[in-house]
């Protein structure tokens, strides 16, 4: 038997098991199951497909629910509506294979939350060997639901759950999503209990997408079930449904957390790349043949311009690489500006640059403050080897003193450059950031039908207003 060919192949297993212990008997042919009787309410013929398993059935003509456990066929509830308001999207009697097993749709329920009048559909699936399952359809999205016997850790019905409450099962935590009263609004088909239109249970849903753990409490017992998100297309195909399925809208509670998964994957990838990049940066920093090729000291008078300073010629050897120009001046609530060019002594190629240093400080109502620094650095990339000199003009501004001051310009070669590193790093964060924002919006939408949303909603804004 073991799963793969469940019910159908009984004959084979029958013969196989009739070993020497059991006296050989002709395998009894399966008795036809379905039974018919006249509806106690309207007299119409009612068929019950699984007597012995089903305890109640709904009359197709008058929609009364009927107890079939005794020949009295007691009416359990009558339906007030004259026309059928709801039509199952999967016809009763359809059979399909889900999760590797064959299921027949034997019952259909519409239930509503009594407070909000929010309603959804439930299809009862039956296999005489495996028992019952449910397909629950809500706003076009589907869950496959299995009743479980093991008890989750939860304090569901001792108090109304508050935000963030969890139920634990098999080492997983499920977050409270919904709590309310669910009432039977409409029924069709047959059921393993005595179904009564209008009867209600207290229900709580906890989610850990794509799974949902639910508890339902009536006067006698608490029944737990585990739901799993199921693709509508898979169900549509399995039951060979001719009509279109309901239009999907919103984000269902159990939508698989693909964004969350993606985010963690992207995050991991980015982290790996960051580590790689940082290692590479460290490597090149350590390897960089840092050397100073020019150290020029000059003077300037504040609030004056000084033009056409030419430095001595200096050599830049080896490969084409960057040149780093460092400017230093004793600025103090003042500024110093240099514009100039790096000139190749042999062919006159120029590399223009400009840079200023400024440093201000003071005190205000927030305390003391300062900004800027007395040093500035700029890089000139891809400078071929050769002899070079600098042409520079200086400008400066200082309100408090006009004494001549000294500045220095240093040209270094083969300095490690951090600019690219920081640029790539910040660009790298855009991807997970975007993915995080996308995830947040999906999660907020997922929780928009819940009173327990960890995300701010329009409603809570208006409440606090």
């Amino acid at each position, binding site marked *: *038997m*073991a*799963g793969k060919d469940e*019910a*159908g192949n*009984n*004959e084979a*297993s*029958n013969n*196989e*098991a*009739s070993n020497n*212990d*059991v*006296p050989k008997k002709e*395998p*009894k*042919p*399966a*008795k*036809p*199951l379905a*039974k018919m009787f006249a509806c106690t309410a309207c007299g119409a013929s009612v068929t019950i497909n*699984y*007597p*012995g*398993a089903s*305890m109640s059935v709904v009359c197709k003509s008058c929609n009364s629910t009927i107890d079939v456990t005794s020949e009295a066929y007691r009416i359990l509830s009558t339906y007030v509506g004259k026309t059928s308001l709801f039509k199952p999207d999967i016809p009763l009697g359809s059979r399909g294979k889900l999760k590797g097993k*064959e299921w027949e749709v034997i019952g259909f329920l519409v239930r509503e939350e009594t407070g909000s009048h929010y309603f959804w559909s439930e299809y009862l699936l039956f*296999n*005489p*060997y*495996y*028992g*019952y399952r449910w397909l629950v359809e809500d706003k076009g999205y589907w869950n496959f639901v299995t009743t479980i*016997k*093991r*008890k989750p850790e939860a304090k569901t019905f001792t108090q109304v759950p508050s935000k963030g409450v969890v139920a634990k099962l098999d080492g997983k935590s499920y977050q409270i999503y919904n709590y309310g009263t669910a009432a039977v609004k409409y029924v069709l088909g047959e059921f*393993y*209990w*005595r179904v009564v239109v209008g009867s209600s249970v207290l229900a709580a849903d906890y989610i850990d997408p794509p799974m949902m753990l639910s508890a339902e409490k009536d006067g*006698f*017992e*608490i029944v737990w079930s585990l739901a799993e998100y199921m693709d509508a297309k898979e169900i549509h195909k399995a039951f060979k449904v001719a009509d279109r399925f309901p239009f999907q809208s919103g984000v269902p509670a159990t939508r698989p957390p693909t964004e969350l998964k993606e985010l963690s994957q992207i995050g991991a990838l980015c982290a790996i790349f960051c580590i790689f990049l940082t290692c590479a940066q460290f490597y090149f920093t350590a390897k960089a043949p840092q050397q100073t090729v020019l150290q020029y000291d000059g003077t300037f008078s504040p609030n004056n311009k000084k033009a056409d300073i030419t430095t001595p010629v200096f050599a830049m050897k080896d490969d084409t690489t960057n040149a780093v120009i460092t400017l230093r001046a004793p600025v103090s609530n003042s500024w110093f500006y240099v514009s100039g060019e790096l000139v190749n002594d042999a062919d006159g190629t120029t590399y223009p640059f400009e840079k200023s240093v400024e440093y201000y400080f003071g005190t205000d109502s927030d305390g003391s403050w300062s900004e800027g620094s007395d040093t500035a650095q700029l890089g000139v990339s891809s400078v071929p080897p050769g002899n070079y000199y600098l042409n520079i003009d200086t400008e400066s501004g200082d309100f408090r003193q006009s004494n001549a001051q000294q500045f220095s310009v240093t040209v270094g070669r083969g300095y490690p450059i951090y600019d690219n590193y920081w640029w790539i790093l910040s660009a790298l964060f855009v991807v997970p950031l975007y993915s995080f924002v996308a995830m947040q919006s999906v999660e907020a939408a997922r929780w928009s039908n819940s009173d327990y949303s960890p995300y701010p909603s329009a409603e809570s804004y208006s409440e606090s207003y």
Partner: protein
Amino acid sequence: MLTLSCPSCGANVNFQSKVSVFAVCSYCKASLVRQGMDLDKIGEVAELVDDLTPIQIGTTGMYKGQKFEVVGRMKLGYDDGYWNEWFTYFADEKIGWLAEAQGFYAVCFPCFDMVPPVGSFHPGKAVDFGRYGIYEVDDVRKVKCLFSEGELPFNALQGRKSESIDLSGFEDEMATIEIAEKENRVFLGSYVDFDDLQFKNLRPIDGW
């Protein structure tokens, strides 16, 4: 295995287990009580009208690596339904019960080294089973024997009344306290998936 003849119709009545003291003749449906090698007819079992179950007398299965065979059944009814208690005989002559209801299956064994707890039971109540752990009451049901067949370890006449308390323990563990006229007993076991029981010789079901 002990084979005796039915005092009513002469057909063979088999007893696989030494602890079986009751049997229903598979031909004439006489309910029989065994005392040693003697069989006495004490009544007759009326056929079941609606009976949909995948198990039958002769079905075999595996539980925790041990093979068992279904040798008897008691169908129990309560206000809101019914379930089957299948009497099982294991390869090592141990006996147990396979409880079957609505596609749920549990295998359990009588627990002789425990005094059945007494008092009132209600769903949600925690019951201390000593070294077997704490169990929680799921439901309490007044039950009646609706039907019996095969061999059984007590007189399972139709109409036999008892109280059945279902409990669940850690993960898949389950327990049943049976409060009958003459004695109270505790059964301990676990819920098992249909596929894991590796059933053979199941009852054919029309259309499946």
